[in-house]
């Protein structure tokens, strides 16, 4: 049973526009969320995170929004750049129960020049 879901396998946006990647989760005990970016044949790199006590965290072009009542988070990238083209994984920390990161299946973002 998938606890972290990324329902859009892929997303295509134009350079300079906003990219919005979505993630839903089922476990209300998750207390920390992270976004990772992954290029082919490389390991994931950490992008941005948010604690469950916050609803927004911003770092340069990247902003993560958390809606706990909806069990939904989103990553906004603005403006999008061709170098942002990669697979983006949402991950949730289940520290209370298992002390492990639970990953979604990823969304492939393609930023068209």
């Amino acid at each position, binding site marked *: 049973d*998938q606890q972290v879901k990324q329902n859009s396998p892929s997303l295509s946006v134009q350079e300079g526009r906003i990219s919005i990647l979505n993630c839903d989760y089922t476990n209300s005990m998750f207390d920390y969320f*992270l976004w990772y970016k992954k290029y082919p044949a490389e*390991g*994931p790199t950490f992008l941005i995170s948010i604690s469950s006590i916050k609803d927004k965290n911003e770092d340069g072009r990247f902003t993560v929004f958390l809606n706990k009542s909806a069990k939904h988070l989103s990553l906004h990238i603005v403006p999008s750049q061709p170098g942002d083209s990669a697979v983006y994984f949402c991950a949730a920390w289940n*520290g209370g129960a298992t002390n492990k990161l639970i990953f979604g*299946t990823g969304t492939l973002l393609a930023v068209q020049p």
Partner: protein
Amino acid sequence: EADIYQTPRYLVIGTGKKITLECSQTMGHDKMYWYQQDPGMELHLIHYSYGVNSTEKGDLSSESTVSRIRTEHFPLTLESARPSHTSQYLCASRGAGDSYEQYFGPGTRLTVT
């Protein structure tokens, strides 16, 4: 900048062979993890360690084994490789404290023929 290394980066090997995937980190992190990831799928935790001489199986059943004799080294061994083991193997580490971020190595792409 995370310093976590994996070798080999790519490996093609025949069925029945014994292989060891190497993972080393120079950050002094006590927690280390092995994940398995296939295209379009989430990262599955197969092994983790919270310190020297501590190893645990992850959520995904795996025929591999791990050891943690030194803090910086966390090798993964397959005694008898099978085509079903074909996948990308990602090693990660995490330091002490409140940071939930895991640092990933570049991965090993394993193909068993």
